[in-house]
């Protein structure tokens, strides 16, 4: 029998705010242990939470970007459990009134080839709610050590419908979601810093049937590749169990990216009973049209919309757009360059190839680059106007990347201007023809390739600064006399 997978993802995204969710001590990553706490974070007696307006703005922005319905009113609930990462013994979350419902994430599946756009699908979302992150436990011999720096960081939980069908789709979903979050300035989504975390609910069923099988929750998928590999492995594991006549247990499994295997976490003796109830310390949130409109005005164009526009408006090929678009800064750089030089395709090539190569080699970010859109646009114009040849342009690019000089200045300094003196070119061509009567006879006798015999001497005379196309034209013209 054939089986198909049904996957739902729960993605936690830390919001990029300056302070925590319910108190104003700073939020941050990588600071010395327990330096980001205050009485609210530590749940000292008598403290009360106060919502972070900035975090609410960001989840609403996420909801609008993903096409969710934003709740007119929502409340906060306490999720009760004892665990040392949470000093209150409850987590403030949203149970039955999330801020966002519905919506979807547009994804792109791998295409038949790298340069061909893959199929696009929309993965439906169930909900997005806001809660607070917990502290970090460090396990040592005989004890656990708690660092509360992360505790109370605004955390968004994005829950998909169980409509993801494969490990590749899950990978595409996370990639697309991450890009949208970064575009919106909602989160930096650095998985190594725990700013984006993913749990997967996976089940299988006989292909073509409608029911849902017993689901297994897979945890610890702490890189996008681990999400893909972990899910693929879990689908294989469940399929093998089913094919051998076994039963799939409802359980939580821990994925180990190093070994590529998962193991069952000790099964809970009973299901979680979080005893959710409304938090009496926090008043509800009411979102009106004015608030939504103000946020909508700050929403960027979605990445896939931008990619389609780049292809249509500028005629830039898919491969180039798929390099430019995921990075908002790079796509802005491209649009500015295209505007300045009016040659979007050339601009796209320089940015996607040369600029990225140099940035990578120098190990710096785009924001640190000495080369701006005006530099690249200037270079495109120099090549387009025939002032320099493309080989020389490559050299100019490397130089201006290093020094930040204008391309014209580099051309001047290094004497890279192409030979455009037609009189001189004509003289070199005439000399080459005069000194090689045999090739002249061959050419005139119909041997096209004989033309090449003249080109070497001309290029040597021009010290490589002659445009091969012009040399070709000039030789033909002179030989036709």
């Amino acid at each position: 029998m054939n089986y198909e997978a049904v996957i739902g993802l729960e993605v936690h995204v830390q919001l990029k705010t300056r302070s925590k969710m319910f108190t104003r001590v700073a939020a941050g990553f990588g600071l010395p242990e327990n330096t980001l706490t205050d009485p609210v974070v530590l749940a000292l007696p008598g403290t009360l939470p106060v919502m972070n307006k900035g975090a609410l703005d960001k989840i609403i922005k996420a909801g609008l970007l993903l096409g969710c319905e934003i709740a007119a009113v929502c409340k906060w609930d306490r999720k009760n459990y004892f665990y040392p990462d949470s000093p209150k013994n409850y987590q403030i979350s949203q149970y039955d009134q999330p801020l966002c419902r519905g919506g979807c994430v547009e994804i792109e599946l791998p295409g038949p080839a790298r340069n061909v756009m893959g199929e696009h699908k929309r993965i439906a979302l169930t909900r997005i709610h806001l809660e607070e992150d917990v502290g970090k436990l460090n396990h040592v011999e005989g004890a656990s050590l708690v660092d509360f720096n992360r505790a109370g960081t605004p955390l968004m939980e994005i829950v998909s419908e169980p409509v993801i069908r494969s490990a590749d789709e899950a990978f595409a979903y996370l990639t697309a979601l991450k890009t949208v979050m970064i575009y919106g300035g909602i989160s930096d989504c650095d998985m190594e810093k725990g700013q984006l975390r993913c749990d997967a609910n996976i089940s299988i069923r006989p292909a073509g049937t409608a029911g849902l099988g017993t689901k297994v929750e897979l945890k610890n998928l702490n890189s996008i590749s681990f999400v893909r590999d972990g899910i693929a492995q879990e689908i294989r594991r469940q399929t093998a169990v089913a094919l051998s006549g076994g039963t799939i247990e409802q359980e939580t499994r821990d994925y180990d990216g190093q070994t590529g295997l998962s193991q069952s976490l000790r099964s809970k003796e009973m299901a979680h009973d979080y005893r959710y109830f409304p938090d009496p310390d926090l008043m509800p949130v009411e979102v009106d049209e004015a608030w939504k409109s103000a946020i909508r005005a700050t929403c960027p164009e979605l990445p896939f919309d931008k990619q389609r526009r780049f292809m249509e408006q500028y005629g830039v090929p898919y491969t180039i757009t798929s390099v430019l678009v995921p990075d908002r800064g790079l796509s802005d750089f491209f649009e500015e360059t295209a505007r300045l030089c009016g040659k979007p395709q050339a601009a796209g090539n320089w940015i996607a190839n040369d600029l990225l190569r140099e940035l990578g080699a120098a190990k710096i970010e785009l924001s640190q680059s000495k080369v701006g859109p005006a530099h690249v646009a200037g270079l495109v114009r120099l090549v387009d106007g025939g002032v320099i040849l493309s080989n020389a342009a490559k050299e100019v690019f490397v130089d201006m990347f290093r020094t930040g000089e204008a391309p014209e200045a580099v051309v001047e300094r290094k004497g890279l201007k192409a030979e455009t003196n037609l009189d001189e070119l004509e003289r070199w061509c005439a000399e080459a023809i005069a000194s090689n009567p045999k090739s002249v006879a061959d050419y005139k006798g119909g041997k096209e390739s004989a033309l090449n015999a003249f080109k070497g001497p001309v290029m040597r005379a021009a010290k490589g600064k002659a445009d091969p196309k012009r040399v070709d034209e000039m030789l033909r013209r002179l030989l036709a006399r």
Partner: protein
Amino acid sequence: MPQPNDLKLDHIANLARLSLTAEEKERFGRQLGDMLDYVALLNEVDVEGVEPTAHAFPVVNVWAQDVPEPGLSVEDALRNAPERRDNMFVVPKVVE
């Protein structure tokens, strides 16, 4: 009032991390039963036409702007810790 039949005392004790003797179960079961009876009086209130709410006051959107303020020093943060190590709180080993 005896302990109600549907009171899952063992479950509640477990959630609260309490281990109760048979005698305590008997006593607390009875007391919890009394409390539930008392709270059940609320069921007699006519709430027809009253919209469910989590709060009695019509106050919404109580918040602060996202501007950080100074927090506690590590020393102050750990002041109440029964045991500390490497500027962290020491707790019994937990592994999920």
